[in-house]
């Protein structure tokens, strides 16, 4: 009995001392499929153990706020500029060194260098090629509520960060009143809300539940691989419906592992990880010299379609966007 106890204690002690070597806690709004392989490679290369807490951006932002100075998080890896900007505005991130951001395209890098973009994606409209011709679709997303023929046939994801970012950007560009009006107009068309699940939404489109859906460009690329009858529709150049949006990562001020955290961020913008994000999820890389599949519009082309939105104003407008959604009874 005594011997077993001793053995158990030794094991436990060994466990804790191992745990103390080097661990990094990452709060990830990005899905496990994209995170796991990168984390595993990082662990192999550096010997640093990485614990990942998965959640939606909003869930993790709320958690980091609730946890305050007691937060176990070292790194926040967010799915949207809104969430990253929100925490940056609150002064929860450390300023990143230039070594880390040197090779990263300046298009989506915030001036205060509170976070580094990891990939870029664009909002688009997905449509069922069997039911809709692109000529039938409006030039601007602002005119989508006029499409009464699509009543009950539109899908969106009200809880999804990129959608809320898009709404925040709409507020930045056109003001609250126009955005509220747009939401009311959309609501009158009885869109189906797929919460946070774009994959679920496109599955529903395949199943015939809806004909068009507001989503991110790569979801369509992913289902095209499975030859679904679904294609991408971009609104006219500069339209808010084509909003470009970055995912990104930041180091929390409360971290005690800033060196490991910085190494993790560098790994995310290194060639290996960037190639992986592109190949597995069709997201645009933030560094140059990575070959893109021909099914995707070249970055230089697609970036022109997106309007320019000041990323520092965006966070304030996400709160407003969530409020508008609640007022409209959608959230």
């Amino acid at each position, binding site marked *: 009995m005594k011997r077993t106890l001793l053995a158990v204690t030794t094991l436990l002690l060994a466990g804790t001392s191992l745990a103390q070597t080097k661990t990094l806690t990452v709060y990830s709004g990005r899905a496990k499929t994209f995170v796991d392989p990168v984390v595993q490679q990082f662990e192999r290369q550096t010997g640093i153990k990485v614990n990942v807490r998965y959640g939606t951006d909003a869930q993790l932002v709320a958690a980091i706020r609730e946890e305050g100075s*007691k937060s*176990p998080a070292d790194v926040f890896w967010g799915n949207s500029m809104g969430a990253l900007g929100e925490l940056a505005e609150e002064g929860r991130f450390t300023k990143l060194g230039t070594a880390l951001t040197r090779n990263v395209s300046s298009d989506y890098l915030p001036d205060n260098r509170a976070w580094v973009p990891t990939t870029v994606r664009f909002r688009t409209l997905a449509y069922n090629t069997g039911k809709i011709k692109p000529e039938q679709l409006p030039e601007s997303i602002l005119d989508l509520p006029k499409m009464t023929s699509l009543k009950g046939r539109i899908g969106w994801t009200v*809880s999804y960060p990129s959608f809320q970012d898009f709404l925040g950007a709409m507020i930045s560009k056109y003001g609250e009143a126009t955005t509220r009006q747009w939401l009311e107009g959309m609501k009158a068309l009885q869109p189906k809300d797929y919460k946070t699940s774009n994959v679920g939404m496109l599955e*529903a489109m395949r199943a*015939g539940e809806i004909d068009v859906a507001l989503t991110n460009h790569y979801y369509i690329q992913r289902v095209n691989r499975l030859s679904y009858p679904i294609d991408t529709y971009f609104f006219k150049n500069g339209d808010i419906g084509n909003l470009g949006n970055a995912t990104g990562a930041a180091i929390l001020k409360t971290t005690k592992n800033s060196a490991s955290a910085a190494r993790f961020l560098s790994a995310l913008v290194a060639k290996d990880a960037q190639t992986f994000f592109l190949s597995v999820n069709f997201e645009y890389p933030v560094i140059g010299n990575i070959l893109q599949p021909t099914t995707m519009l070249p970055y230089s082309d697609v970036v022109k379609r997106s309007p320019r939105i000041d990323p520092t104003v965006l966070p304030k407008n996400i709160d407003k966007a*969530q409020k508008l959604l609640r007022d409209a009874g959608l*959230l």
Partner: protein
Amino acid sequence: MNARRPHPLLLLPALLAVLGVLLPLVYLVLRALDAESSELREIVFRPRNLELLANTLLLTLGVLAGTTLIALPLAYLAARTDLRPRRLLMLLGVLPLAIPGYVGAYALIAASGAGGTIDALTGIRWPGPSGYWGALGVLTLFTFPYLFLNLHAALRSQDPALEDAARLLGRTPWQTFREVTLPYLRPAWLSGALLIALHVLGDFSVVSLMRFPTFSAAIYQQYTAAYDRVYSAWLALALLLVTGAALLLEARLMRGVRLSRVSPGGTRRPTVLPLGRAAPLAWAGLAALAGAALIVPLGTIVYWLRLETNPFAWNSLLEAFQSALGAAAVAAVTTTALAFPLAYIGSRHSGPLARLTERAAYLGYATPPLAFALALVFFTLNVVPPLYQTFPLLIIAYTLHFLAEAVGPVRTSLLKATPRLEEAGRLLGLSAPQTLRRVTIPLVRPGLLVSAAFVFLSVLKELPLTLLLSPIGFETLSRNVWAYTEEAQYASAAPYALALALSGALLTLLILRREDRRAPRSAPTRPAPPAAAPAPPKEGPA
């Protein structure tokens, strides 16, 4: 029964059970009030709250009606007719309990629509379940066993003399059923209905998948989609109020119900009704039920399983299986251990203190799990930060939540084990702790095992507490089914769903066999406490 005050040490667990639930709830209130008054006014008087309330109530009533429509005929067929084999009917009445609601919802969604299982196999496009009717259907199919078990036990134990008397006094069979049998079933129906109501009120997963906004669905949506937790806290409080109202209503309806036999002598077995030509009709109904609640869900899971091609899936499955089993095993032990003193007081002492003590167990069970989990997050961060996101906190949450399930079976075995044996032990010179170890515990071991098995099964299926309170990197079967289903990755969800359904079925069968063996040859003289479900607080037999 012993009217003496129970030993203060025995009261400690009850105190823990109450404080463990109430203290975090205080923090939920504090968090809810943590906003500016203009914001608070806007939150509390939001028109959406009314819509959520209406939806929540409509769904609860709908599921109660639906489960009654399934459970009552099935229980009657199993208990009172010559339909055989009876064991098959029992299985049909109990096995759906092994399938958690979100697995059932997942399976039925993945079975229907273009490209779904039914379309792929037969070419028939069945519209997918969604909205009010979808939520109602799924919740009905996978919660009716709570009601079935209660009604079946009551129907088996009813003294046929009552019905005979009604017939002799000139009532038709139908009138007898309406005027004698149905009123007799009322308490059993009420306890089962309360369990189902608690389940529906607390469920966020099925309603979220069916896109039907109720309070729980809204809490979950706020939790995943808003940067601010104040509104979640308010919704959780609103849900607590609705749940409290349901509890009060049940207690009120239960008041004054006395069904114990007063005449001397034993009861006969219930009369068996020959079905004759109605039998094929009954079998058709049973086949439809088996199809919807068991065959289609399991078939769909197996169908999607073939499509899972990710070679790493099996490794993750093993890992998730291990953590799920580990957590369930630990929680089963802690919960049963905490339940024992509560049940002991409830069965060996009487008076208001004893009754209150036993009811303390139901507090955690009645608290909607999402609300409880949020409360625990606020509580630990503010009061005991070292517990935040740890395995012990998860176990504490399970224990407090499932305590009620463990109290029932232990109390039943304690009631059957006469205190005379304990007294004899004391007279023969054993100390109190020795009596406990050498007399009481061996006597109630079967009850303890059943309790542990119930809790084990419940923890395995549990989703909301697991989702909000698991330590970082802790993956279980339920978490993974949910994560993949939410993303409509049906093939990836399949292995976890199957592992859950199979281990659930295995446990259910084990419990059923144990209960079978323990059931006395002659019917008990008063409705036995419902077998598979925790008996909700009710007026104790005098």
